[in-house]
């Protein structure tokens, strides 16, 4: 209860005209930055950090916290309307959001689903942050190299749910994704790996241009087939009223949002995992649950799981940042840099020494959640007009947006080249029935897995039993991993030997 009292104290800090103004400004900027492809929360916060130097530290962090947080809302806009994720956590939102907007002709509802589930996920994350606070950060600390490695192995098994109709093709692309992600500087040895003598490859292949290409640019190539089809404005209802979800829709999004919100918060707390991993895992987890329509065809459940998870993770990542001064993500690292520039000392004493600051920031997350939701709902009719633009005009304009996004995320033409190559490959893969979603998931998770695996081996001097069974958490996760891997095999054997008959669906 003491934490809730401190939260109310935090609201007292936020509810001053200056701080409310900063929160509102942060929310608006975050939405814009989030919707712009290529400028994720990391670049957004970093670019706007210098603006806040003249502010009081509490006002500054409220603005940047609101910006970071509402960025998660903004990323979904372009993912749903253009199939170009505004930032990397919105990649999975595009998988169902875009078909729901274009094929099912329910763009308003798709945006509304993203907003509602973002809000639910965010509130879950924030409540957990308030209730568990520093304890949550301590739980995150228990996940060392070995624990993270086994957890990521468990997470990688979710690729099986994303591979689509042909598992061989899906896994083949997954492996290509992992190898592409292994290009760059090897952290453990500090030397280049698979750079093939190219100085640009020393830094590896950036995720954002890779995604803009694989998802967005490939989509533009496909759209050339439909560019002469006229858009009928009567198909779209351009008002908030016309975008409202039905009671049944809300029922559909609630379950996935709550589940993904809980999971996302936990992923956000883990060292180095971040909102993108959370969105992937939220979506993959939804695959294991029942959805009214198949995921990938414009299902509300898919959008809800991905959006709720990434917002919850954004909230969860504040736990180690505030309680221990440990950034859970790149954006967290920039915020940490900001704290130091404002003359604060981020670390275990922040809650004790600067309660106004820490609780003010947490309270501002609640306020910015409401602001972001209200603004997002307000701009839906305006956003929907994008879909009325004839495809033949949309294609060249979005090509320019792809260029701008890829360049802005890397500050170099190399990023643009990566985007172009990934786009052409993405188109060819799609044409041949290969699903690219598992490749993107592997691209995000594999470097984390490899890093933790190598650290775990160094930590234990190569003792495999110590890696998998060295702690209670690692042991439990290993057993879960064994179960997940063995279950389909055992099930098949039981079915073949006639000892088990699966129930028929429907």
């Amino acid at each position, binding site marked *: 209860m003491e934490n809730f009292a401190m939260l109310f104290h935090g609201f007292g800090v936020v509810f001053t005209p200056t701080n409310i103004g900063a929160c509102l400004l942060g929310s608006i900027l975050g939405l814009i930055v989030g919707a712009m492809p290529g400028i994720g929360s990391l670049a957004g916060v970093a670019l706007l950090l210098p603006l806040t130097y003249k502010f009081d530290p509490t006002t500054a962090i409220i603005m940047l916290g609101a910006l970071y947080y509402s960025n998660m809302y903004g990323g979904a806009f372009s993912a749903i309307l253009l199939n170009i994720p505004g930032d990397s956590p919105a990649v999975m939102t595009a998988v169902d959001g875009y078909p729901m907007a274009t094929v099912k002709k329910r763009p308003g509802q798709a945006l509304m689903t993203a907003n509602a589930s973002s809000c639910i996920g965010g509130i879950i994350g924030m409540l957990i942050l308030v209730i568990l606070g520093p304890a949550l950060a301590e739980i995150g600390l228990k996940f060392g*190299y070995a624990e993270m490695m086994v957890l990521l192995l468990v997470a990688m098994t979710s690729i099986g749910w994303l591979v689509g109709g042909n598992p061989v093709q899906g896994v083949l692309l997954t492996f290509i994704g992992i190898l592409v992600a292994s290009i760059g500087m090897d952290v453990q040895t500090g030397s280049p790996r698979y750079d093939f003598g190219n100085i640009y490859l*020393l830094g590896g292949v950036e995720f954002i241009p890779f995604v803009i290409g694989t998802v967005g640019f490939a989509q533009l190539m496909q759209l050339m087939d439909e560019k002469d089809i006229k858009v009928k404005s009567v198909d779209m209802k351009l008002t908030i009223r016309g975008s409202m979800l039905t009671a049944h829709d809300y029922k559909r999004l609630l379950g996935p949002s709550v589940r993904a919100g809980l999971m996302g918060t936990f992923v956000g707390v883990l060292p180095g995992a971040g909102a993108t991993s959370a969105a992937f895992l939220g979506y993959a987890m939804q695959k294991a649950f029942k959805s009214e329509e198949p995921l990938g065809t414009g299902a509300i459940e898919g959008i809800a799981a991905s959006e709720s998870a990434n917002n919850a993770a954004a909230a969860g990542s504040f736990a180690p940042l505030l309680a221990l001064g440990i950034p859970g993500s790149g954006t967290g*690292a920039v915020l940490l840099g900001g704290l130091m520039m404002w003359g604060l*000392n981020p670390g275990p*004493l922040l809650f004790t020494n600067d309660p106004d600051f820490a609780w003010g920031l947490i309270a501002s997350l609640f306020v910015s959640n409401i602001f972001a939701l209200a603004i997002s709902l307000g701009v839906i009719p305006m956003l929907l007009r994008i879909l009325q633009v004839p495809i033949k005009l949309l294609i060249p304009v979005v090509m320019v947006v792809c260029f701008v996004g890829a360049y802005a995320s890397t500050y*170099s033409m190399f990023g643009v080249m990566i985007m172009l190559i990934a786009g052409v490959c993405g188109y060819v893969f799609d044409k041949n029935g290969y699903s690219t979603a598992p490749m993107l998931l592997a691209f995000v998770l594999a470097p984390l897995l490899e890093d933790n695996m190598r650290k775990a081996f160094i930590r234990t001097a190569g003792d495999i039993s110590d890696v998998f069974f060295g702690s209670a958490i690692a042991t439990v996760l290993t057993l879960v991993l064994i179960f997940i891997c063995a279950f389909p095999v055992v099930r098949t054997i039981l079915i073949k030997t006639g000892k088990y008959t699966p129930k028929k669906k429907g």
Partner: protein
Amino acid sequence: MKKTFTLAIALLMVTTMAFAGGNADASSDGSFTPTRDVTWTCTSSPGGGSDIFTQEIKESIRLNGFSDANIVIDYVTDGGGEVGRLEVSRMTGPRADHTILTFNSGDLMPMCLNTNNRIENFKPLALMASDNHFLCSGDMSKYHSFQEIIDALARGERIVIAGSKGDDIETYNALLKSLGVDETQLAYVTNDSTSSAITSLLGGHVDLVLGKQASCEQYIIAERMFPMVALCEDRFTSDLLKDMPTITEFGYEACDVPNWRGIVAPKAMSEAAADYWAECFRQVTETPEWDEYITRNGLVPMYMDRASTVQFMTEFQQSYLQSIGKDK
């Protein structure tokens, strides 16, 4: 149609001029004054130590009016920063006078290790500060003093240190040499940042952390981490760390590889411009904001003028190249 395209091309040229600012460079009469936006290249991501260092100096120059130039920080992190360093080293013409680069020991070492680019391709302008390393244990560590570490190593126990990249790895290698043990006994886990290393120490997943004052200070005050031994020759002077013994007090050689922070320019920068910028940086080191920055980050003030910086960086590079066997 022809007319339209002529019009379009004319429009393009006008836009190019407008966008480019239509600047012509000022002639020099021995002294230098910036005549256009100055690009300050930072090869690390925004928010990190190098970025804060860059922002601090930029702000100080602006606030105190040491230069009227509009300085724009350009983050070129491609290829682990090598692309940015190469671009700056190759810059020529008037732009070279308006380009500066944040250049730390943590930049020089990977540059020498992974590329053929060398300090001779730059014009060193100033050395601003340096940082020293020490070992810390955590509240879940088995060992609480350096003597316990020495005893444990003598018993053949295996100890794991976590630290960051760059100069931390070099310091660890020097520590192995100084203690006379190998990496199987004193293992090192390289992390992306010191905060990741601290995360594993606080969780009890490693025994020690190789850190610097700025990154460890708050954890030491909160008694989550305990300073164990300074790896440099002299003791730290701050109140927080002045009681920490140095490795030399235990009879071992000092093994710190100083993490210096400096600023360089393209080799083609004119002497007048180089003097102008070096003077700006000297003035920065005399401001109260700079003192505050040094104190806040637990750094050691280490200002050097142009000539001394050239000598220091060249010697540092020479010794590093020797240590990795690339001195031929």
